[in-house]
């Protein structure tokens, strides 16, 4: 697969020195198709969105709304109005917390998250629950290291208002049974938010089939530009949301002390939209669809399995998460006994192998595992087996260099 996309990724040629980029769960590299869609917007003449009466502005508006429709289609959203452009997955989740949950939660209500959640899908709930006197509950990990949804008694209880879970864990690569959770929640009128930040690039997302209420992700983790993300909000929930960020573009009539708002999605997009970002975002969806999300997912899963096999041959390496093959998305977290994860990543970095180390914005999970952090390798379309060899060589080198015994 790498050979097939070699020409698409200028960083493969332009990076100084050999670069094994294995920090794809943090952010991916961008293909030319995206970079060009993006810079074309800026070269060809910019215009404001939604506000102009001249042809250029009409085109900017049309491009922006076409990007929205493209992304709605990408995630299987029945209506384009259900797609709100935000700055990032983090921004999207905060929007739900502040525009929807703040209004919905009553004292004693419960919001559930898993032990695995990224801070961006944890802190907004912690904050809003405190503010509203609601209770934040955690779906703990079971024996097999996966969130044990069945053991979370009262998960679907009468006091539960929202279940907010990631589709794919950014540390362990675990794929959560979002479809099943959404189905059970739906039957009890409980809202479900899916943090799809790690799923967007390599798993098929279909909000129609999922039947979830909210879904959030960022463009920059799916080969798209930074600074833009989206929130899918199902029409009935959209109707329950209050404006959050207020300002130009989202107000209908400004009154003396109260104002009225334009309909969604513009209601939730105050300020000048990031039109070039939206176009780049849509170009990333095009890129993914051209390769096929299924093929991409299979590719990164195979690499993760292989990395797991190779790493486990190094003594003192401990791997976290599912140990069976085919069970994890393209993410592997591990530690070398006696070494701090930062040191492993730094030695690897000096060898040109880009790994992430630390708590990965998942302190609740780290506490549970009783560690301060892990080293993480995460894969993308341009990685291949040679990257895994380099990874293992770097880990071996770190051991030699840093372990005194």
């Amino acid at each position, binding site marked *: 697969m790498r050979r097939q996309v070699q020409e698409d990724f200028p960083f493969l040629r332009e990076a100084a020195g050999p670069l094994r980029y294995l920090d794809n769960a943090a952010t991916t590299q961008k293909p030319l198709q995206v970079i060009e869609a993006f810079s074309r917007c800026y070269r060809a003449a910019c215009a404001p969105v*939604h*506000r*102009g*009466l001249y*042809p250029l*502005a*009409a085109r900017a*508006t*049309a491009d922006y*709304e076409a990007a929205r429709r493209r992304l709605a289609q990408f995630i299987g959203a029945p209506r384009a109005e259900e797609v709100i452009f935000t700055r990032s997955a983090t921004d999207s989740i905060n929007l739900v917390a502040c525009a929807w949950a703040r209004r919905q939660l009553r004292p004693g209500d419960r919001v559930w998250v898993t032990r695995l959640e990224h801070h961006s899908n944890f802190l907004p709930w912690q904050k809003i629950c405190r503010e509203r006197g609601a209770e934040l509950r955690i779906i703990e990990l079971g024996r097999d290291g996966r969130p044990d949804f069945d053991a979370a008694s009262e998960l679907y209880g009468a006091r539960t208002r929202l279940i907010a879970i990631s589709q794919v864990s950014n540390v362990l690569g675990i794929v959560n049974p979002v479809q099943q959770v959404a189905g059970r929640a739906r039957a009890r009128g409980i809202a479900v938010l899916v943090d799809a930040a790690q799923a967007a690039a390599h798993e098929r997302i279909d909000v129609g089939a999922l039947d979830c209420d909210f879904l959030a992700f960022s463009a920059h983790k799916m080969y798209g530009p930074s600074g833009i993300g989206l929130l899918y909000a199902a029409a009935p929930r959209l109707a329950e949301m209050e404006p959050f960020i207020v300002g130009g*573009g*989202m107000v*209908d*009539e400004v009154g003396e002390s109260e104002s*009225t708002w*334009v*309909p969604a999605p*513009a*209601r939730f997009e105050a300020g000048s939209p990031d039109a070039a970002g939206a176009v780049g975002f849509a170009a990333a969806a095009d890129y993914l669809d051209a390769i096929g999300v299924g093929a991409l997912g299979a590719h990164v899963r195979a690499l993760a399995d292989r990395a797991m096999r190779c790493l486990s041959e190094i003594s003192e390496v401990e791997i976290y998460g599912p140990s069976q093959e085919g069970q994890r998305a393209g993410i592997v977290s591990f530690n070398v006994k006696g070494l701090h994860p930062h040191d492993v990543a730094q030695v690897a970095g000096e060898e040109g192998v880009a790994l992430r180390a630390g708590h990965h914005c998942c302190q609740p999970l780290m506490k549970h595992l009783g560690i301060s952090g892990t080293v993480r390798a995460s894969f993308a379309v341009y990685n291949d087996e040679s990257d895994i060899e380099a990874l293992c060589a770097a880990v071996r080198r770190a051991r030699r260099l840093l372990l005194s015994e």
Partner: protein
Amino acid sequence: MLDHARHPRNRGGLELAEIVRRGRNPQCGDEIEVGIAVARQARGEVLASARFRGRGCAVCIASASIATDALCAMTRADAVRLTREMTRWFGAGGAAPSGISPALQALALVRDYPARLRCALLAWQALSEALDPDAVKPSTPG
């Protein structure tokens, strides 16, 4: 369309109307009132008159002029159907409602200017409410 904007038909004279409905677009400051009068004839209820007054941009005025022109003398059922089809067509695009006049077709030009859509829709929505007070008010882009 320009002609309708410069020389709008059916403007004023709402005193005789039986049902009056108002449409506003605070985004542009457009404000329009439409009034209809219904006569009972052999073929059913027929719009004896459809008139408007108000202020707005050329698109808004032309659209009101064209709309009232088109509806006048139609049966109520036909008028309801036409207003529905026209509003749907503005919003969603696709094929023009069958058998509409060139003046109505000209209105489709505003689809190139999403910012003007609401101007063009204003009179139609007010008319639709006047004709069929139970109809759900469609939401419009801002």
